[in-house]
């Protein structure tokens, strides 16, 4: 048993899951916004990065990790709400290219602003748990307390979001506003408010993701810290289906595991090529995503 747990393949799977849940969280935050507003938020990673800077560098530099995490989440909520109200609200109903250009532009603005305020040098964040792998019979298991914390946090976030959407009145309104905005208005749902709330939730999920990424001392916090993670999260969302939260979860974890094997058995330089290849094949075979049902469209 101990040799199995310390084997190379199991290590790849465990490391893949640890990376994959992060991709899943990025994908989930993209899905939350896409489902409600049909906009791909290319600035999502940068918005999350700014929220993390606010939590750990600007407002709460001397407080502990958990307080900073809470501040980052609140900052994420505020940034998401402001983005929807100030930038996105004017883009509804416009040609599809407009929000793409606007969000890419917003990404560049946020990264420039972060560099101007906090510099481009990497900032180490406190780590709440050890990143040293557990040992079994004096051999590493490829799972550290920090990695377990990442996995548990990601799962808790996903369960909370799923429960909110499935079992609460607010979730029912959010889903209705996303699927059938006009009918929802006729039933008394304040659709504009729901769209803002959707962006706030997405941005808060992004903030949690960015804190997890930046807490890893191999990464640290920089203005572009989320760019790579966002790319893989975007690929996971596109493969899973931009309409499918379950797809975001499963494709993120699958992508993490596959890429871990690619990096281990082939070459770490091949990781991005394989990821993009998977995206292209997926778009050719299942353009709406592996987990999206054809009926899941606006009514």
């Amino acid at each position, binding site marked *: 048993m101990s040799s199995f747990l310390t084997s190379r393949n199991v290590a790849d799977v465990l490391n893949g899951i640890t990376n994959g849940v992060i991709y899943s969280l990025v994908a989930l935050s993209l899905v939350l916004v896409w489902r409600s507003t049909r906009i791909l938020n290319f600035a999502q990673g940068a918005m999350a990065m700014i929220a993390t800077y606010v939590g750990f560098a600007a407002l709460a530099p001397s407080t502990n990790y958990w307080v900073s995490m809470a501040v980052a989440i609140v900052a994420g909520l505020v940034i998401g709400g402001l983005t929807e109200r100030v930038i996105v609200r004017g883009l509804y109903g416009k040609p599809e290219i407009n929000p793409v250009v606007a969000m890419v532009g917003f990404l560049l603005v946020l990264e420039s602003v972060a560099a101007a305020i906090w510099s481009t040098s990497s900032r180490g964040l406190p780590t709440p748990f050890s990143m040293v792998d557990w040992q079994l019979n004096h051999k590493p298991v490829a799972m550290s307390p920090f990695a377990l914390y990442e996995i548990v946090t990601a799962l808790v976030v996903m369960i909370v979001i799923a429960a909110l959407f499935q079992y609460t009145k607010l979730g029912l*309104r959010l889903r209705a506003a996303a699927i*059938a905005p006009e009918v929802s*208005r*006729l*039933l008394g*749902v304040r659709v504009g408010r729901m769209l803002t709330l959707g962006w706030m939730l997405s941005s808060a999920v992004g903030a949690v993701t960015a804190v997890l990424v930046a807490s890893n001392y191999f990464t640290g916090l920089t203005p572009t810290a989320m760019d790579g993670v966002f790319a893989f999260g975007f690929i996971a969302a596109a493969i899973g289906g931009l309409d499918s939260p379950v797809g975001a979860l499963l494709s993120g974890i699958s992508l993490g595991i596959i890429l871990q094997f690619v990096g281990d058995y082939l070459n770490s330089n091949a990781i991005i090529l394989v990821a993009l290849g998977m995206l292209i094949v997926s778009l050719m075979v299942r353009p709406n995503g592996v987990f999206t049902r054809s*009926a899941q469209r606006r009514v």
Partner: protein
Amino acid sequence: MIRVEGLSVAYGAVQALRDVSFSAETGAITAVLGANGAGKTTLLRTISGLVTPRSGTVSLDATTLTGERPEDIVRRGVGHVPEGRGVIAEFTVEENLRLGAMISKVTLRDALSQQYEWFPVLGERRKQAAATLSGGERQMLAMARALIAQPSVLLLDEPSLGLAPLVTAQLMHTVSDLCTSSGLTVILVEQNAKSALRIAKRAVVLYLGRVVADDVAAAVAEDDQLRQYYLGMVK
């Protein structure tokens, strides 16, 4: 009473409604009839706030509705069952009803059991996705979802569209019963003039956005000229 006065609506250069005025009596069915493109659906969408008029007003008793948002107008007691029914296909029957019940003043349990009493088939299918319902069942769901908020006025847009004659007759019977039993005011938009005139107390006939007749339903039904030129009915 719903009162529409001097309502004009345009989509760009296209004038959809021209100086439309009429009243819908409390506790009665007022049929709005006319051919395709007469402006019937635009009229209902303007009453419920989805379309902003160029001029004119809509009022419910002493309250002016014009200028208010649809989500506020429904809170004032104006329910709207849109053309094509508008049920949310991805939701279950009960989720559709729960959504409608969010502005209801009675408890969810009471509100649901009332609708299941009026439309027993919905109770049997409460856990089913709305996408799996037949056309008639979807229409019942759309009506139940509007009624569960306990409106004083119900706007019904082409409820018979795509339904078999027998199902249409059942629906019209249900609408008529609701008016009688609960004092509901109904504005019924229909292309099927015959079945609408059978249950309506008054009828308003639209032609190219103008009111060409506003009279008791029986009189409209007997007017050969109206029947022939505006309603496409052959005696």
